[in-house]
C-alpha cells in the first residue's frame, strides 16, 4: 500500500529530485551572488552566463538520470515523460535567459536577479513535471508562479510591466484558490493526494459519479485552465504578455505553459481516467471555445506581443485536444507539440527582441513593414516561425508534425475526438489570417521611405533565432528522433498491486461511455 508522502523513503523523494535540487541550490547561490554586486550590465550578463551554465548542468544531469533510476509509484514520478518535460523546460530556460540578457540591455534593465528568477521558476516547472502527488503539483505551480509574478514586473521603470504583473498576480492567486479547492475536494472524495491512488480508488470504489469528485475535477480543470490560459480563463494572458519584457513573455508563453500542461495531462491521465465521462464534455468545450476565440481575437491584433499571446491561447486549445484524447498517444503528441511550440515561440519572441528599440512601448506589426528589404534573414526567420505556429509543412517545419501528431492522437483515441479534430483544422485556417498577415507585411508591403532599419540584433538573440529556426526546419523533414523520444516519453503507471485483484470496471456510468486508461493502453499497440 502506498502511503501519501512517505518522506522516509529517500529513493522516492530525494534521489528522484536530484536534478531539481541541483537547480534550486544553484539558483540560491546565484541569487546571493547577484545581490552581492551593484546592478550593472556587466554583472547582469555574468549572472546570466552563469545561469545558462547552471541550466546546462541541470540538463546534463537530467540526461544522466533518464532511464537510470526507478522510484515506483511514489509522490515523485520518475519516468521519461518527466525527463522530456524537463528538457523542454530547460531548453526554454536557456533561451529565456539568453534572450533576457539581450533584452535587458535594450530596455535598460540591470537586475541580475532576473536570470535567477527564471532558474527558480524553472525549478518549479521541473517539480511540476515530476509531480505525482497533488501536494507536489501545488508546490510546483506556486514555486513557478511566484517567480514568474516577479519576472512579469521585472521592468521597474515600466508602468505597463507593473500593471501586467499585478493582473497576473491577483488573477493567478485567485485561480490558485480554485485549484486548491479542487484539490481539497478530490482529496475529500478519495482520501488521498497521490495521483495513481486517486485513479485506483475512483475505479475501485466507483467514485466517478461522486459529486465531491466531480466538483473537484471541475475546479482543478479551472485551475489548470488558468495556468495554460484557456478561454474564458485567458484574459490575463494578453495583458501580462504585453506588459512583461519580451524574454519573460516568451518564457511565460512557452515554458510556463509547457510545465502546466505537463502537470495537467499527468493528473488527468493518472488520476482521472476513470472519470472521463465527468470531465470530457467540459474539457472538450473549453478546447473548442479556446481554439475559436483565441484565433478569432488574434485576427484583431496589431501588437505582435498581443498577437503571440492570442496565438498561445489558441495553441493551448490545440493541446487540449491531446488531453481530451485521454491516451498516451495524447501525452506523446503533447510532448512533441510542446517542444516545437517552445522553439517557435522563443524564435518569434527573439524576433520581437530584435525589433525592440529602447523606450518603445510595444512592437507593432506595422514595424515589420517591408522588413524583407532591410533585414532579409530576420524576415525569413519570422516567416518560418509564423508558418511553424500555423502548422504548415516543410516551410513551417516541425510545426506541421506537431499538429499532425495531435490530430493522430485525437483520431486514434479510444473515443475518437473527431469533432475536436475538425475544429482544430478549421480554426487553424482562421489562424492563418493573422500569421499570414505578419508574413504579408514583411514581404509584400514596401518599406516606407524614412522608416529606420531595426538595430542589429544582439548575438544571443541571433543565436536563439538561428537555433530555433534551424531546429524547426530540420525537425520538419526528419522528425524521427524527437518523435521516437516523444513516443517513449509517456507517464508511467506503476499499477498498485492491491488494485490488480479488484474489478476495474466499477463505474456508475454505462461501461461504454467511460473509457479507461486501461482501454487506451489496450488500444495502443504494443511496440
Amino acid at each position, binding site marked *: 500500500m502506498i502511503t501519501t508522502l512517505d518522506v522516509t523513503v529517500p529513493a522516492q523523494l530525494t534521489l528522484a529530485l536530484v536534478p531539481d535540487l541541483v537547480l534550486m541550490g544553484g539558483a540560491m547561490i546565484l541569487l546571493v551572488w547577484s545581490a552581492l554586486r551593484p546592478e550593472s550590465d556587466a554583472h547582469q550578463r555574468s549572472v546570466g552566463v552563469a545561469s545558462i551554465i547552471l541550466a546546462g548542468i541541470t540538463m546534463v544531469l537530467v540526461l544522466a538520470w533518464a532511464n537510470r533510476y526507478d522510484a515506483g509509484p511514489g509522490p515523485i514520478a520518475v519516468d521519461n515523460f518527466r525527463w522530456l518535460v524537463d528538457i523542454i523546460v530547460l531548453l526554454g530556460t536557456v533561451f529565456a535567459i539568453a534572450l533576457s540578457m539581450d533584452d535587458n540591455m535594450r530596455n535598460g534593465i540591470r537586475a541580475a536577479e532576473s536570470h535567477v528568477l527564471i532558474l527558480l521558476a524553472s525549478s518549479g516547472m521541473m517539480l511540476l513535471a515530476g509531480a505525482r502527488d497533488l501536494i507536489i503539483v501545488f508546490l510546483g505551480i506556486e514555486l513557478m508562479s511566484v517567480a514568474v509574478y516577479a519576472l512579469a514586473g521585472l521592468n521597474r521603470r515600466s508602468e505597463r510591466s507593473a500593471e501586467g504583473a499585478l493582473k497576473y498576480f491577483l488573477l493567478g492567486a485567485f485561480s490558485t484558490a480554485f485549484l486548491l479547492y479542487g484539490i481539497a475536494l478530490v482529496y475529500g472524495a478519495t482520501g488521498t493526494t497521490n495521483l495513481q491512488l486517486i485513479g485506483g480508488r475512483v475505479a475501485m470504489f466507483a467514485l466517478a459519479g461522486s459529486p465531491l469528485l466531480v466538483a473537484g475535477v471541475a475546479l482543478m480543470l479551472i485551475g489548470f485552465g488558468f495556468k495554460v490560459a484557456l478561454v474564458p480563463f485567458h484574459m490575463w494572458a494578453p495583458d501580462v504578455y504585453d506588459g512583461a519584457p519580451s524574454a519573460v513573455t516568451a518564457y511565460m508563453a512557452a515554458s510556463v505553459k509547457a510545465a502546466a500542461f505537463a502537470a495537467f495531462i499527468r493528473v488527468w491521465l493518472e488520476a482521472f481516467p476513470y472519470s472521463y465521462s465527468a470531465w470530457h464534455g467540459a474539457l472538450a468545450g473549453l478546447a473548442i471555445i479556446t481554439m475559436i476565440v483565441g484565433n478569432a481575437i488574434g485576427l484583431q491584433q496589431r501588437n505582435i506581443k498581443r498577437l503571440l499571446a492570442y496565438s498561445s491561447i489558441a495553441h493551448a486549445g490545440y493541446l487540449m485536444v491531446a488531453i481530451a484524447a485521454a491516451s498516451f498517444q495524447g501525452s506523446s503528441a503533447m510532448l512533441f507539440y510542446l517542444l516545437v511550440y517552445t522553439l517557435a515561440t522563443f524564435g518569434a519572441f527573439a524576433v520581437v527582441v530584435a525589433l525592440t528599440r529602447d523606450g518603445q512601448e510595444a512592437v507593432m506589426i506595422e514595424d515589420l513593414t517591408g522588413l*524583407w*528589404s*532591410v533585414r*532579409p534573414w530576420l524576415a525569413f526567420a519570422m516567416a518560418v516561425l509564423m*508558418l511553424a505556429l500555423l502548422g*504548415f*509543412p*516543410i*516551410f513551417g517545419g516541425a510545426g*506541421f508534425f506537431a499538429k*499532425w*501528431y495531435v*490530430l*493522430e492522437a485525437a*483520431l*486514434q483515441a479510444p473515443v*475518437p475526438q*473527431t469533432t475536436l*479534430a*475538425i475544429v*482544430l*483544422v*478549421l480554426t*487553424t*485556417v482562421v489562424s*492563418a*489570417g493573422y500569421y*499570414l*498577415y505578419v508574413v*504579408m507585411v514583411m*514581404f*509584400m*508591403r*514596401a518599406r516606407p521611405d524614412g522608416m529606420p532599419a531595426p538595430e542589429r540584433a544582439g548575438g544571443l538573440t541571433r543565436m536563439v533565432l538561428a537555433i530555433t529556426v534551424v531546429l524547426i526546419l530540420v525537425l520538419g523533414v*526528419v*522528425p*524521427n528522433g524527437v*518523435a*521516437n523520444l516523444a*513516443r517513449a516519453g509517456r507517464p508511467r503507471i506503476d499499477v498498485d498491486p492491491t488494485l490488480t485483484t479488484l474489478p476495474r470496471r466499477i463505474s456508475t456510468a454505462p461501461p461504454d461511455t467511460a473509457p479507461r486508461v486501461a482501454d487506451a493502453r489496450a488500444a*495502443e*499497440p*504494443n*511496440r
Partner: protein
Amino acid sequence: MSAFLTSIGYQHWVLPALLVIPLAGALVIWVHGAVTRPRCAPGGDEVATGVAAAPRGWALATFAIEFVVSLGLWWSFDPGNTGWQSVVDWSWIPMWGIRFTLGIDGIAVMMVLLTTLIMLLAVGGSWTSIRARTHSYYALLLVLTAGMLGVFLALDLFLFYVMWEVMLVPMYFIIGIWGGERRIYASLKFFLYTMVGSMLMLAAIVYLGLAARDPATGLPNFNYDWILQHALVGSTTAKWLFGAFFLAFAVKVPMFPFHTWLPDAHVEAPTAGSVVLASIMLKLGTFGFIRLAVPLFPAAAMSPTIRSIILLLAVIGIVYGALVSLVQPDFKKLVAYSSVSHLGFVMLGIFALTVQSVQGALMVMINHGISTGALFFLIGMIYERRHTRLIDDYGGIARVVPMFAAMLTIVTFSSIGVPGTNGFVGEFLVLIGSFRTEPVFALVATTVVIISAAYLLWAIQRILFNSLDKPENEHVPDLNKRELAVLIPLVACIVWLGVYPAPVLRRMEGAATKFVSQVDARRDAMVTADAQSAPEVQP
C-alpha cells in the same frame, strides 16, 4: 531510346531527380542571391541593371534540365503496364507509418510532362516581366515546381498532403510580391480558400491512415495502394471523408461555387503565376479526384445523390463560367472564368465514369493547361507593352501586332474547341462519354460550345479587330523572338494534340480504364457489402 534509358537506369532515379533538380536549382539561386545581395538595390529594376541575368539564367538552365530529364518518361513509360512505374519507396518516418513513395501511372506521366514544359516556358514568360527581386522569384518558381511534381508523383498520402501544401507557399509569395494592384487580397484569399479544403483533407488522411493500420505492427499506413485495399470504413464515414477530400479538391479545381478565389488570383498574379495556376495547379484538383477522392471512396463518390450533386455543380460551373466570362471587362478575368467552365468539363468527365469521358477529362486537363497557359502568356505579353488588361483599352491591334494576333487567334480557337485543335479532342471525348451515362447533363454542357465561342470571339474581336482607334495602341511592338519561342511549343502542342492525340491517349488509356473499372467494381462491392449491413469498422 528506351534501351538507352534502361542502360542509364533511368527509371530508378528519375522521379526523385525530378524533385531534386528544381530544389537544387532553387538553392543555387538562393545562395547566389544571398552572396550578391549587397549589389542589388531592393525593389529596383534588376532586369535593366543586369542583376536578373544570373537567376533567370540559372532558372532557365534548371528547368531545361528538368524538362529533358522528364522527357525520358515519354519513352520509359510502358503504356501496357497499368501498375505504378519507376517506383521509389524509401523509409521516412517509420513510427508514423510514413514513407517517401513516388511512382507514376499514365495520368501522372502526362501531368509531369505538362508541368515541366509549362514551367520551362514560364521562365521565358517571366524573362522581362519580373524586374524586382528576381533571385527570390526564380527560386520560388523552382520550389513551386518541386511541390507540384510531388503531388503528381506521391504514392503516400502523407507525402501527397505535404506536397499539396508545399506548393501553396511559393504561389502565395509569387502572387503577393510580384502581383498586381490587389495582390495582397488575392494572395490571402487564394491561401485561405485552399487551406480550408486542405486542412479537412489532412484530418481525413490521418483518419484513413489510422483506419488502414497494419495489423502486424499496429502502425498507421499511408501508402496509397495499401489504403485502397485496407482502409475499410463504413458508408457514412466514407461520405464524410469523401466530403473532406471533395472540399480540398473542389476548391482547387475550382468547382462552382468554390471558385471565387480564382478570378482574383489569376488577375493579380504575374504572368507566370497565372500560367502556372491555370495550367498546372487547377489540374491538381482534378488529379486529386482521379487519384484519391473517387478511388478511395467509390461508393460515396458514386452514390446517386452525391454523384448527381457533383455532376450538377460541374455542369453549373460549365455554363456559369462561360456566361460570366461573357461579360468580363478584364481579359485575364475572362480567361479565369473560362477556366471554371473548362474544369467543369473535367469534373463532368470524371464523374460520368466512362472510359471516354475519363480519357476526355484527362485530355481537357492537358489541353486546358496548354491553351489557357498560352492565353495567359499572351495576355502577359501584351500587358508588358500596354500595362492594361482591360479589353476595351485595345481594339484593332491585329494590324500593329500581326504575329501576336495570329498566335492569339490560334490559341483562342483551341480554347473554343475548334476541331483540329487539342481543345476539341478533350471536350468531344468528355461529352460523348458522359452522354452515355448522363445524357441530360451532357446535353446541357454541350450548349457551352456556343457560349464559349461567343465570349472568346467577342473578346478577341474587341482586342485584335475593329478599328484601331486608340493612339496609344498604334506603336505597340510585336512579339519578340523570345516570346515566340515561348508560344511556338504551345501552338505546336495545340495542333499536335488536335490532329494526332493517339500517342497521349494510348499512354493514359491503361490508367483511365483501370480507374473506371476499379471504381465501378469497388462501388458495387461496397454497395453489396452495405446491403449486408456490414458493421461500421472503427479505426
